[in-house]
């Protein structure tokens, strides 16, 4: 703030006495060097420091094409204005009040500074035939939903009663926000407006791998509830979502669908089962049922004792526990977390085994634990950790340094 004020003061001093806010902004933009680190941020603050009264001039400076760093900088400076003044200014953005060539700049400003209150305004600006401004509209909706979790609920409410084109934009905006609340809003939309369920869930499916992990429990619950309905209009998408989100708890439902009468659902259920478990079983539902019963029995009867053995100090017990955990294909994340914790203080023999099992489980969350063992005193442990990291990241890791530097960044999404 101090820097912004200083820059503003300096600019005011430098500028002629008759210069208005628009001239001040123009001067800031003229001096802007986008290549300088932090220059955009500083310039944005300086523009904001011109005050709420300068918003009109700043908006006028946004080019009709509304592209490029300068336009984005101008739009971003609105975000730093006091909320009430900003809201009052944005309320003037209507398709009637603005000339057609100012619609794109308006959507850019809304994208950078709008809140959930402005969602309906974005739709109104794009008009009933949203195709011409589809990209800008979706970008604005996406940015608002990603920035403001409360906006996701508003978007849901709007989508429930919107026209087809507007609803599609809202769905795309929510999906591309890549946030938990947005994903939950899409899942609820599929429930509340069945005509939109295929679109909402397929959009969610397209972005599923970019959702932050661990997944929101409410989201998983909402999807599971809908998955339980065989006649759901978007049953196909729900089946695949279970796989893309690797929801272990949906395995019984997937096995049920695999044994169902509908071919297309069987194929999607099989794809998800294979993805969740990593098993290569065929389309025979009974084989999957047998496997799942074994897993359930193990988790019910053996898991507590095995976990205890793993945590105990006895090497033989740890080997036994690792052997059993190595045969698990359900709840792989849980097993991987346990093993990652164990690996942090495991003796050499156990660490080698744990590295092998972690590689098979294929969970990225194990990467830090494996990286830590790259500096182990035991050469064989180092080698096992390196091999496991190579397997998890899908890349050849020739040396410890490369593994430490690049394994996490180059990880293959799973």
């Amino acid at each position: 703030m101090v820097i912004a004020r200083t820059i503003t003061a300096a600019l005011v001093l430098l500028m002629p006495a008759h210069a208005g806010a628009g001239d001040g902004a123009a001067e800031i933009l003229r001096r802007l060097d986008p290549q300088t680190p932090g220059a955009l941020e500083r310039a944005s603050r300086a523009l904001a420091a011109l005050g709420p009264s300068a918003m009109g001039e700043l908006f006028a400076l946004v080019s009709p094409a509304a592209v490029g760093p300068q336009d984005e900088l101008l739009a971003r400076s609105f975000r730093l204005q006091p909320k009430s003044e900003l809201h009052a200014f944005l309320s003037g953005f209507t398709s009637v009040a603005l000339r057609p060539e100012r619609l794109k700049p308006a959507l850019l400003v809304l994208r950078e500074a709008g809140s959930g209150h402005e969602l309906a305004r974005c739709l109104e600006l794009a008009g009933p035939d949203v195709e011409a401004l589809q990209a800008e509209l979706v970008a604005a909706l996406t940015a608002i939903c990603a920035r403001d979790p409360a906006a996701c609920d508003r978007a849901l409410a709007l989508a429930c009663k919107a026209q087809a084109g507007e609803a599609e934009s809202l769905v795309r905006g929510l999906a591309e926000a890549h946030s938990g609340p947005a994903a939950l809003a899409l899942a609820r939309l599929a429930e509340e407006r069945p005509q939109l369920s295929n679109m909402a869930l397929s959009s969610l499916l397209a972005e599923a791998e970019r959702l932050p992990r661990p997944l929101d429990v409410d989201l998983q619950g909402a999807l599971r509830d809908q998955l339980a309905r065989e006649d759901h209009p978007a049953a196909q998408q729900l089946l695949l979502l279970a796989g893309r989100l690797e929801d272990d708890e949906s395995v019984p439902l997937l096995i049920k669908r695999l044994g169902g009468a509908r071919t297309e659902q069987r194929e999607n259920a099989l794809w998800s089962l294979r993805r969740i478990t990593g098993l290569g079983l065929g389309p025979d539902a009974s084989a999957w049922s047998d496997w799942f019963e074994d897993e359930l029995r193990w988790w019910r009867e053996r898991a507590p004792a095995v976990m205890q053995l793993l945590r105990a100090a006895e090497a033989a017990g740890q080997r036994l526990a690792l052997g059993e955990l190595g045969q698990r294909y359900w709840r792989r994340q849980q097993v991987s977390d346990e093993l990652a914790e164990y690996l942090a203080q495991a003796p050499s023999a156990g660490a080698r085994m744990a590295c092998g099992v972690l590689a098979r489980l294929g969970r990225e969350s194990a990467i830090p634990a494996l990286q830590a063992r790259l500096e182990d005193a035991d050469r064989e442990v180092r080698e096992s950790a390196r091999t496991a990291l190579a397997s998890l990241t899908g890349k050849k890791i020739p040396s410890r340094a490369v593994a430490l530097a690049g394994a996490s960044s180059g990880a293959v999404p799973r």
Partner: protein
Amino acid sequence: MKSMISREGTDSRSTRRGSVLIPALLAVLLTSGLCVCYLQLSLSKSRESQVSVDAKSAFYVAEAGLAEAYYGLARGMQGAVASESVPARFGNGVYWVTCEDLGDRVTLRSTGLTRKGRAAVSATLRKGTLSVASLGMYGNQSVDLRKGSRVDAYDSTVGPYESPKVASPGGGSALDARVGCNGSINLAGGSEYSPGATIVGDANPGPSGTVVIGMEAIVTGSTAPATQTTTLPTLHIELPEEEPLEPTAGTPVHLPAGSYAWSKMHLGPNSLVHITGPADVVLDELVLDHGSRLEIDGSLGAVEISVRSYVNMVAGSVFTTLSQGTDRASLLTSASLSVDRDRDGIADPPVTLAATGPFYGLIYAPRAPVVLPASFTVYGSVVADRITLGNNARLHFDRALLNSTVGGTLPEFLCWRVVELPPSRLVDFGFDPLTVLKVNSVVPVAPQDAHYVKGVAPDTSLRTWLAPVTEILW
């Protein structure tokens, strides 16, 4: 005393008389014993020999099963042949083959039974590639279906195209279309006034792709992502230095069967070229102006048009086939660059198909985007780098192309081994399998009729076989 001695002597002779019978008897007994032993040994040897013959025979039957499965794979079938509950007959034995799909490889496991012989062998093969025409509608990067467009299927071996009646999610259809992509498949939504895009069949995106379904859009089949990406074969079109063909307006040009090459085929307004198959036409550029017509008659043989760098069929031109065989016409192009060819300052796309159809056959443009308008209905397959099916456009996939191996490669053998016999009462019984099948009123199928086509789950159930009573009593 003498008489006594004499009597004793007489008695002794009389008692000795017939004593030879004992050794004789013993000899007979011994001989009989030896005979029995020999008979036993001989029977045992015979049985052993029979078992050996049966085992060898069963092995060859199992091998025949593998060969049949390979034949099926090469024809585009699944690989599985018959099943334990209804095996296939081969000579005096039966077999069935199961198939495990491992992505780019496939493991076949054949079980052969003859009389008392049992054998199971397994082979792993790298999958062959089918003709690109079997891919249906396939985009390397993307597939977009606009409002009102529709992809469905028919089987030209059964009859001409008829619009499938079922078009609701899960409604199912015996004739599913195939839409695939290495990336994502997008179906535009509709509104209350216009329908969304429709796929009557399967839409399988790439491993990390998705089928994004707009409002009122429909996919009736599976939307499961593929397990691996598909590499489209590259086209190498060699073109000798040739003159262009530019027919004069109003004078039709008839090209009889044969091979042709021109640097450019440019059909101006009111010009017509009629190609009769079998024919190969190699071009650098193919341009159809408004009012021109290019006809392909494949009734006597296939016509293949290969274009190296530019295809432009503007709206108002006609590009059509006179026969309805989808394997009788193909337009292949390696065009990939957008170049300003008409010098209007705007780069022209490498492939423009705005002509009027219908077209029966394959359109293959592995490096170019292709937009199919509503005027150009395709019966057969379209494979391109990116495909857009325009508003209200139609593509009817011919399922007969699923088994087309033209231009494909055969499965490659990787390894072979003898494996454990599968758990089955038919295997566990020591009886002749044909007798067991007869007792259970099961007629083994002919091998050629026992293949499973792709998409059909093989019968993996194990039958509860009844043992033949007469054989047990015997």
